[in-house]
């Protein structure tokens, strides 16, 4: 790998991971600029990803002394980069915060956590909420600040897998090359409300996607959700007691549910009703 890297993008901040991206390929850094727009920061980058075109035409992403991944398609290489950024983001944030594998959006000052395992609909549901006017925090990893219990954003681009693309066809990238494989779409480009840096949690939901199922939002006990969120906490075993205590304290201020999603529009309606109910309860208690 000897080619000079003429183009650069960044710096970007992903929780505690501040990085830049350099490439000899202008189309790659242009894609990074667009996709990572919501992660831009004024802080100096502590590390740089280098993207090189190999003699066989493949693109390779290097970080430090190691290879993050190689691919022929722009989307494959971006997916490798995104994966590594996610790893670093969750690792850095987990040192002093509780980081849930969850998407998160906010409406009227109320944070909505959508947790669940892979393929449970975190990105698809949050994309639909953004379209309905919610502000964006993340589709992957929301951090709970132990001192304030505020939810801290990680506004990475939404990673829209091929299986969800028919539901979110309006988000298809204009550039044909970016439309192959997984789409990466900046959250601020998805809805009218942009990004939110921090918000108190008000509604916490465990997602379950069941094709063909009736959409339902069912109350879930806080204790049951705590147990399930422990399984969705990055690096849980590093600080199990802290992670449980902070998550439990955060849940004390939340209405808690399980959402079985069959129809996306109905899911958005049910979640929005839950947010309004929550806000009315909070208002009444003042």
């Amino acid at each position, binding site marked *: 790998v000897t080619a000079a890297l003429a183009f650069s993008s960044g710096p970007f901040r992903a929780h505690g991971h501040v990085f830049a991206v350099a490439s000899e390929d202008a189309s790659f850094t242009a894609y990074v600029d667009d996709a990572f727009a919501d992660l831009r920061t004024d802080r100096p980058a502590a590390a740089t990803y280098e993207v090189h075109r190999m003699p066989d035409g493949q693109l390779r992403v290097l970080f430090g002394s190691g290879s993050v991944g190689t691919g022929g398609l722009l989307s494959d290489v971006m997916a490798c980069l995104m994966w590594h950024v996610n790893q670093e983001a969750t690792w850095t944030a987990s040192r002093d915060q509780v980081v849930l594998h969850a998407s998160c959006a906010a409406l009227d000052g109320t944070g909505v956590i959508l947790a669940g395992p892979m393929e449970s609909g975190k990105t698809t549901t949050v994309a639909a909420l953004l379209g309905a006017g919610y502000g964006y925090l993340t589709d992957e990893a929301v951090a709970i600040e132990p001192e304030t219990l505020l939810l801290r954003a990680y506004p990475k681009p939404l990673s829209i897998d091929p299986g969800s693309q028919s539901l979110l066809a309006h988000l298809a990238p204009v550039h044909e090359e970016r439309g192959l494989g997984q789409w990466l779409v900046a959250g601020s480009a998805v809805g009218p409300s942009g990004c939110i840096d921090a918000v108190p949690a008000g509604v916490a939901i465990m997602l379950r996607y069941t094709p063909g199922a009736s959409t339902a939002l069912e109350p879930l006990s*806080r204790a049951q959700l705590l147990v399930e969120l422990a399984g969705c906490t990055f690096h849980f075993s590093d600080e*199990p*007691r802290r992670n*449980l205590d902070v998550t439990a304290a955060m849940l004390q201020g939340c209405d808690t549910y399980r959402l079985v999603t069959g129809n996306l529009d109905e899911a958005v309606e049910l979640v929005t009703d839950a947010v309004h109910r929550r806000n009315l309860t909070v208002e009444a208690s003042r």
Partner: protein
Amino acid sequence: VISPLWTELSVPRLRQDLHKIRLDGELVVWQPSGDLHRFDPIATAVVDLLDGERTVTEIATLLAQATGASPTEIEQDVLALLDELSQLSLLIRPGQAC
């Protein structure tokens, strides 16, 4: 069900190294092996009395007074729960030092 390990005269006690969190009357217990358990409000009421000082009979009597249920039936339920907790390694076994 008569427990082979626990009897009416046993004095059950929860392990000391558990991390316990209460939410809305339910109890979440984390143990150092990494396992997490959730107890509903009824099981939580029993677990709260496993202090290493009360016998199973005394625990059942207290719960019977609180609920109005039969002490004999509650005693059997407590013994069944103790078996379950033992299998989860949440109790100090009779004769165990800590």
